[in-house]
């Protein structure tokens, strides 16, 4: 009797303990250690060169390259996430209508996500070549001058966003589809009886019903989008030669790319840790803003 009460009380804690232990080792410890490093003049190879307090942070706030990277990160995030989630929503609605061979289409939308990001970036980098790229060739067919995709800020942001969208739209569509399938069918039936259009039903029934899933995708896309690294890195041909600054004038250098440049190319680990912490705070802020915005929008419907 005594044992089973003890069992009922403590076993659940025991069972979830491994997660928290692993989190403490691989999550909390690096987080705090990074904060500690950011308070030092820390060289990657030679290690600690002395405590400098908040000097790295004040340097960061006066660093135009940091603000540039922050702007690029937010711009790329908005350019890729907003159309991506809207497209995923539309795609999911189409898949939800019971197409012939639905399993094929559903598996198909996930395909881009399975392909390695390095391969994706390599192919897209070819698409957007200035002299031999397919995109410029197609633009030429309709009489538009070739675009130097890596040289111009907006062109490069569009190019990098297209890579992100290609990879993640299908993934989010499947999440939405799963949620849509659990929306009770009788709601649609009674709406149809009331004479509601498909469009109206989509915004008034489907979207509010899958609100938790939308919130989930918004938060995960925020975290993923703000940590954008591989796509812009591989879009810059200089990355392979370790010369990458995300474009000749940092046109598409994201915060993570900037952190990489500082930490692993210039070996300034203390400053890189500072960038990492600022990124952490930016992600938190944007996630909270998005979360509350989406909640408000979704609850209006």
């Amino acid at each position, binding site marked *: 009797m005594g044992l089973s009460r003890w069992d009922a009380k403590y076993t659940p804690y025991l069972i979830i303990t491994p997660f928290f232990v692993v989190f403490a080792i691989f999550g909390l410890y690096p987080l705090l250690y990074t904060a500690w490093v950011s308070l030092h003049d820390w060289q990657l*190879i*030679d290690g600690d060169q002395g405590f400098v307090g908040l000097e790295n942070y004040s340097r960061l706030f006066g660093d135009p390259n940091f603000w540039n990277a922050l702007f690029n990160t937010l711009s790329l995030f908005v350019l890729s996430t907003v159309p991506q989630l809207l497209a995923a929503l539309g795609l999911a609605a189409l898949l939800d209508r019971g197409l012939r061979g639905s399993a094929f289409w559903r598996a198909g939308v996930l395909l881009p996500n399975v392909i390695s990001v390095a391969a994706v970036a*390599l192919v897209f980098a070819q698409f957007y070549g200035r002299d031999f790229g397919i995109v410029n060739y197609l633009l030429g067919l309709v009489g538009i001058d070739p675009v130097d995709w890596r040289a111009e800020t907006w062109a490069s942001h569009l190019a990098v966003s297209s890579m992100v969208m290609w990879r993640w739209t299908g993934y989010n569509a499947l999440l939405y589809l799963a949620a849509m399938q659990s929306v009770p069918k009788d709601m649609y039936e009674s709406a149809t009886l009331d004479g509601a259009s498909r469009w109206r039903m989509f915004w008034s029934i489907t979207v509010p019903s899958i609100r938790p899933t939308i919130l989930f995708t918004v938060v995960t896309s925020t*975290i993923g989008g703000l940590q954008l690294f591989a796509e812009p890195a591989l879009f810059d*041909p200089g990355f392979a030669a*370790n010369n990458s600054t995300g474009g000749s004038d940092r046109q598409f250098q994201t915060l993570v790319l900037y952190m990489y440049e500082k930490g692993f190319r210039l070996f300034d680990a203390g400053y890189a840790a500072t960038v990492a912490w600022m990124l952490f705070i930016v992600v938190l802020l944007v996630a909270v803003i998005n979360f509350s915005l989406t909640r408000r929008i979704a609850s209006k419907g």
Partner: protein
Amino acid sequence: MNRRLVGSAAATLVMVLVAGCGGSSEADGKIELSLGLFSDFGYDKLIEEYMASHQNIKIEQRKVKMEQHNTQLATQLAGGRGAADIVALEEGVVSQFRASKDKFVNLAEYGAKDLKSQWADWKWNQGTADNGEFVLGLGTDMGSLGLCYRSDLFAAAGLPTDRAEVAKLWPTWADYAKVADQFTAKTPNVKFVDTGRNVYKAILDQTEEGYFAKDDSYIAERNDKVKSAFDTAAALGTKQQTGALEPFSQEWNVALKQGSFATTTCPAWALALIKAGAGDGAAGKWDVTTAPGGGGNWGGSFLAIPKQSKHPKEAYELAKWLTAPEQQKRIFKETGNLPSQPKVYQDAEVQATVNEYFNKAPVGQIFATSAESLKPTYRGTKDSKVGPVFASALTRVEQGKQSGADAWTQALKEVQDVVK
């Protein structure tokens, strides 16, 4: 944040696993040596031979891309574990690792100084510190400069195609720029050179001091040679005579295949890259001749031994053997990597070596001559960090985003962040 955490978790796991493996594999009594390399050092056959004649030694090669190699090595040195027993240090970064020499074995302790006379003086000096008292690495190949050109494109532009005649066209880089003008006037649809950045680097590599004076002080702003190299390259870019290509990138390969540029500066090791990029279709079309302005050095590596190696003595013996003149000669014949030891140049076989792909060019003679006349540039500790700032500036000019003067001004400003 997430990605960083996952990364560090994975790294820790890998380290644990590697440590586990290391213990078990030494159980068969063999000493295990690992070699951390990038691109192709041409060691495959040599290592098999070495293992056959040294039954107690097992050698493993780890090849990754150069960028990855340098970054990995830095983190391994910082972490105090995971580095190979012998690591290759490229010429461009050797000065940077020299600043952390306490993480490496002083090869002088194993008698490396006795080997000094094998190498060209400057090559030996690049691999040492403390006025030669600390021997960081033994030299592998070197990268004396040549100039590669497409003879069919030269013919189309009404220029001579014979390599001796072509060499006469450009005794200096100013002459080279004049040839560019002639070329562009006749064939405006073909770029004269892949990128102005390579021209810039080649000119800099022919001066004794570049970004840094020999006392390691930063002098780029007042060194006329840096400015004039930059101006020469920027002028090519402004006139749209360059392809604005990242050297050795995928796009560079595509441009090679399309035959969209006519010349590129080429150290000995670059010949293999040009051949791979241009493919069989261009066989015999590419040729190589002497570079404007004489010899220069771009590239070439050193073999060093991190302090964390468990078998520094055996590692030293292997590095010594791999870099000995006899082995360097064999590597030259197999891969084209140019030896860093003058004795090898006089070798009849080396002198007689021709490159079939490059229109049977006598590469042995061309590169050996260039190597004997070259005066290498002093590389400062932060050379590899300063260079990319100026390279990006030239790319901005080639992209038509900035004038040469504006790009220069911006580069000088940006570089302050790196050198301070």
